């Protein structure tokens, strides 16, 4: 099993490395969002405060509006991690469908390689991309703080080893979860157009019912409540709470991680059932 998994994973990474256009565009998308969208929406709610309002009150408004973040950009940069987890995993399933169309998947299915190796290799390579991109996003957002004229990610809490671990766990779990979902859909479907139609029915509602991009203070109550169960929100809450402190979060990051783990466990379990059936040795 391990040799089969290693061989197929190697193949996936070789293909990834041989596709510089895809790497470039996967980096370009978050870069544009960080550079344009995040900067463009970097509204300071304190600017609406009445003249003479004490600075501590103004600061309190800002912190409450952005759940402890000192500005929208810092709040948004953490949300971008959730955003790239969705967008960077979209094509994983499409690649399976193209491999089916070109006979490459047929070749793999004609070998005794276990379905776990076939699925696992694509999952590892597929999840690696959003994980790496998430750290690229965070690094870039931190770097912007040193670029004149740009706002950057300002971390106001002490992260520590536990915090760093939580961040890594949140990113890994979220990436694995979305990679599993889109990979499973790709294995179950055979037509690219149908795949993208189905995927769009998932990624947009999931992204837009999370608090990844909206300022917390501007969200209506019903959306805030709904977003608390959203896996993207759960992961982003772990990051924000670690970056900006726990004052504006009802639960500690461990609880959000637990929620995210539950989502991942449930979806991976469903995926295993479906994929085992779809990739059984004899059709």
């Amino acid at each position, binding site marked *: 099993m391990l040799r*089969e998994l290693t061989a*197929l994973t*190697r193949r996936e990474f070789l293909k990834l490395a041989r*596709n510089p256009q895809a790497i470039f565009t996967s980096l370009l998308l978050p870069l544009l969002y960080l550079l344009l969208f995040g900067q463009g929406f970097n509204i300071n709610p304190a600017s609406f405060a009445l003249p003479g309002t004490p600075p501590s009150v103004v600061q309190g408004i800002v912190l409450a509006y952005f759940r402890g973040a000192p500005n929208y950009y810092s709040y948004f940069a953490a949300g971008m991690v959730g955003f790239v987890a969705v967008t960077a995993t979209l094509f994983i399933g499409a690649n399976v469908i193209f*491999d089916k169309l070109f006979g490459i998947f047929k070749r793999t299915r004609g070998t005794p390689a276990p379905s776990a190796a076939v699925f696992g290799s694509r999952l590892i390579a597929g999840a690696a991309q959003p994980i790496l991109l998430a750290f690229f996003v965070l690094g870039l957002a931190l770097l912007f703080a040193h670029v004149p004229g740009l706002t950057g990610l300002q971390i106001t809490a002490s992260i520590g080893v536990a915090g760093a671990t939580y961040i890594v766990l949140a990113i890994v779990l979220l990436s694995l979860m979305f990679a599993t979902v889109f990979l499973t859909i790709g294995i179950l479907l055979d037509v690219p157009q149908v795949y993208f139609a189905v995927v769009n029915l998932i990624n947009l509602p999931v992204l837009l019912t999370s608090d990844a991009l909206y300022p917390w203070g501007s969200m209506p109550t019903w959306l805030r409540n709904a977003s608390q169960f959203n896996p993207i929100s759960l992961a982003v809450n772990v990051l924000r709470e670690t970056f900006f402190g726990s004052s504006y979060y009802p639960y500690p990051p461990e609880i959000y991680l637990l929620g995210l783990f539950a989502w991942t466990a449930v979806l991976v379990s469903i995926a295993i059932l479906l994929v085992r059936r779809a990739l059984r040795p004899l059709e």
Partner: protein
Amino acid sequence: MQTDGAIVAENLVKVYGGKVRAVDGVSFNVAPGEIFGFLGPNGAGKTTTVSMLSAGLRPTSGRAMVGGLEVSHHPEEVKRRIGVIFQESTADGDLTGRENLEVAAGTYGIARSEGRTRANALIAEMHLTDAADRYSKTYSGGMRRRLELAVGLVHQPKILFLDEPTLGLDPQGRAGFWGYVQKLRKETGMTVFVTTHYLDEADTMCDRIAIIDHGKIVAEGTPNELKDKIGGDVVTVKTAPGAPDMTEVIRPLAGVHTVQRQDDSYRIKCTSGETLVPLAVEACYRVGAGVTGVTVKRPSLDEVFLDFTGREYREEEGPSATDRAVMMQRVRGAIGGRR
């Protein structure tokens, strides 16, 4: 039915959707070391049969034994014992020839160092050394086929399934490919099960042949046995347009076995074409039917195919299969090898 062959099919049936009987009670036995040809028009059930034998598809009923194992009970072990060369190219265009082979070896659980050794040996064997480190999407059709064959052999199978292996190759490429297969059979005693688009290949390369039509085997034997079943020569007499029906005029002539009319043409199976031609021409003129053409053929597999299925093989099989191969090549080119 003997059950000690390398490949044994016993009353294999595959029904799709409860209605379509794609394979309808197929039985045959392929001896170890034999090259067995499986011929049939599009939709006859060839690929479905190959899929059931190569552990890709579960039969609705019947039994398939490959390498001594029942396929339905041991699909993964069967996959370890067989090599399959698919009709379409399955090599990964974004990987080099060497990488394709190394990855293929890994999927059979072969250690990386051993996989590398086998890849190098196969690259040399298939004369791909100069192209081994080029992306396989840059390979010519013949090189791709040789790479496919190498991929199918990397785990050293004892039984090889070839599904239209030389489709789209020029005569030189076809000859080269079959040269490798013959060499393999000679050196390793490998059993080869082949479906081919080219009847001349089946005629010269296969020890035995089965013809499948509408899911049933309609003929089986060595190429010579099948030709003998037709019985002697085939004479085709073409009469002038508007001539009367000559069937009953020709049928009583000496040496005639059967007469089939197709418009103004009469396909006559007879003991000796040379003897029949003057008799047939004279008979036609005697009743006022002008003769515009006469041909005499020694039986070929095309004739055998026509005789058993009632259809011309090349008209059935050629254009669609070739078009598909050309289309796939165009699509590959259009997307620049991106998967």
